[in-house]
């Protein structure tokens, strides 16, 4: 209960993760409210703000567990966390 991403200077911020396959909106809940965008090329990108390293790894593990092929992980900025939803447990 003592996560304080604000103290972390490395590896914290906004991330975009792109996976192969179009994900239905219902999966947003599975990824703790991160936003999903589907693309015409049959891929989906998952966006999260204020993601720290352990949250990022937790997310990658979830993707692994449902067998979604990972295409890329991009650090897209250093936005402040805007809501608790960006912290998957």
């Amino acid at each position, binding site marked *: 209960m003592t996560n304080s991403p604000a103290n972390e200077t490395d590896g914290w911020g906004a991330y975009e993760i792109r996976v192969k396959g179009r994900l239905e909106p*219902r999966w947003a809940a599975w990824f703790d409210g991160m936003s999903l965008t589907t693309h015409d090329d049959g891929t989906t990108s998952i966006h999260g703000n204020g993601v720290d390293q352990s949250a990022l790894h937790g997310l990658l593990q979830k993707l692994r567990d449902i067998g979604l092929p990972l295409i890329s992980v991009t650090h897209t900025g250093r936005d402040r966390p805007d809501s608790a939803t960006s912290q998957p447990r």
Partner: protein
Amino acid sequence: MVAPLLESKLHVPSRRPGAVPRVRLNERLSAASRTALTLLSAPAGFGKTTLLTEWLATLPADGPSVAWLSLDRRDNDPTLFWTYVVASLQRAAGIGDSALSLLQSPQPSIEAALAVLLNDLHASGDDILLVLDDYHLIEAPEVRDGMAFLLEHPPPQLHVVLGTRADPALALGGLRGRGQLLEVRAADLRFTPEESTAYLNGAMGLALTSGDVAALDGRTEGWIAALQLAALSMQGRDDASAFIAGFAGDDRYLVDYLVEEVLARQPADTRDFLLRTAVLGRLTGPLCDAVTGREGGTAALLALERANLFLIPLDDRRQWYRYHHLFADVLKAHLQEEYGPEVRELRRRASVWFEQHGEPAEAIDYALAGADFSRAADLMELAIPVMARSRQESTLRSWVPMLPDEMVRVRPVLGVAFAGALAQVSEFDTVGSRLADIERILRPTAVSGPWPEQPPPGVVVVDIEGFRRLPGNVEMYRAALALRDGDLDGTVSHAWRAMSLSPPDDHLTRAGAAALAGLASWTTGDLASAHAGYAEAVAGLRRAGHISDVLGCSITLADIRRTQGRLDEAVSAYEEALELAAVEPGAPPLRGTADMQVGMAGVLLERDDFPAAAQRLATSQQLGEHNGLPQNLYRWRVAMAQLRAAEGDLDTALELLDEADRVYSGDYSPNVRPVPAERARLRVRRGELGHALAWARERQLSPDDDLSYLREFEHITLARLLIAGSTAGRAAASLDEATGLLERLLVAAEHGERGGSVIEILVLQALAHQSRGDVAAALAPLHRAVGLAEPEGYVRVFADEGPPMAALLKPLSRQASASRYVRRLLAATSTTERHPPVKASLVEPLSGRELDVLRLLGTDMDGPDIARELSVSLNTMRTHTKNIYAKLGVTNRRAAVRQAGELNLLSRIRDH
């Protein structure tokens, strides 16, 4: 002592009817019984578990034994993980009884258990396949380290097979390089077009055209779970080709798409059952009934299994099942969407069911997953005594961050257990503030006030027994904190308060507090109080049945007795502990037995009984290192070194002491007989005074130091060094220093009632007088030493001094009143050889100025500083240095200083 094992985790899963034969993969896997590690690494749904199951079924009856373990997240507790691993090996090959008893002992040591396990595996006549399925669930570094250890020392008979979704953090490169790694990966596991055809048109009974199969195969890329779902969706459909066309042209997440298809084709109540039970990690009929709120769960599970709906039986009796993980995850996503808030209620029902069926850990997991924290907190509080008894500290520790802090703050029984679990794993950071929180909420008016009889309003207590023990627990952990901070008075006062506040039946808290008080008193040299504390701890631990801990405390009890010069009582302490540890024949001896043998050897040696001492040390060694408590590694080596030295083999003694220094572990005891000081004594005996001097400098010892019990052994060693320095013909003043130091040491030892130290100091006083040539003065302290030593049968404290002591004992033995004891001492002493100091010298002696420079070279001053200090030019200083190097035969500063030490060129200690 660990929670009852789940039998189903140890079963090889049942074979699936109609599984596609995979001859190529079975053949590849046959090499697994020749390599140390086989890695089956691929994402979810690639048929890893099925392949393992099918392959194991093809093994011949006389093939390797198979130990199976299906892992889950809870196995991240090292004690639990290794208990399961050993249980599976036990079942498969009858191996691991000793390791299991170590893991179940009150003080389990994973390293010790692994060492024993490796021994047993090495001794095994058969090859063993250890299959760990779902290894990707293991994230705890402690568990991974243990696995790495196992694979670094792989017994040739053991073959580990890991089924995993991610490559494990093991040194795979090394294993690969040595040809000890077999890998089967996603590319190998995918269905080939032939296998797809065999599966779809054979096992699933579809009649697809080769074009349809190719289209399916192309879209799924041989991903088996997707092919299975597709086949399920097509069963009983007339328009398979149309379905395939639609499916192949869709780019949605495959499994999601297919699960939706499958769900759509189920009757409403089956669909509902699937979704609601998806929250369960494992399923059984009654549990499903509890969660769904309906009856017929057992029948529903059987029907799902028959319909091939991704239900995997976990045992032969069709009692427990689990969903295929991938299927369950997708079901859960659908469940979340359709049932939303109700999902928490489903998890709560599962939690209640597990609680009622005596599985608190599982009940806690469901409560946490359902974010029902107060329920989780209640369950944790009630589970604490069991977790503490079975030493699942890391599980206890892992619970700490899962509850909101404000919830723990109003639950003092839970809070103190968390503080204790953190202290146990040496994470002291928040222990103090947690204890303060508890005191603040229970004694709001005055922290010194009485503890409440009943929980005050607003405070939540589920475990009333735990509340009674709370004040004692808080004070005990405060004592531990004080000890860690070096506050010895605080340790003692908190510990005494803990004992007076604990209910009489709380043996463990009372024992823990008594031991902490004993430890603090020992550190200050108050041996009587220290002994009282440890004796109290031993009594409490005996009542609580923690015998291995009794042995740990007995080491200290006997150490204290030996320091007090009460050898008989030390022997009784060892004997009582050994009697207590005597177990029924066949069972492995209790951990700590080896330590008692080593202690006994020490007393026997002091009493000059070499054969018996050697016998005890051999017994200790035979018991194995795993039988020893942490200190035994070094203590055995020190005792053996003393035996070898007494026998005259000083080289082996030195090697043993070097080793002892490397493996030293204090295990929280104060280091009252440091190994380097033991080694300095041996150096003195070998005549290598330079080494001993270097030790004294490094320890910054001086004859004028203030004396304390903690440094007594070092100061007595220093006195020995000073006497030896004077007889070697150098620095006559050192004899005066020795005499002065010994006088002060004697007063301190007498005051502290340390009879053992008194005898040794008197012996050294006699030798100091003798060095001066005053034999008459020497006889007085010697006479006293003999008088004190006789009742306890000391011999080596005299005999190890060799010829000089023999010369002193001779006149004593000629006196009319001389006892047989003195004659015995003389006989033992006369057989001890004295090694003359090495008379190494320089061909060309150093000049006075060169000696000055050499002395400064031993400091951290640089060249210009040294030149300034000696008021010479830098050039002159360099010339001196060059000459020194030449005379000493060295080429650099460090070697010069070392050589100076060897040759004892700078013998005055104070010249540093």
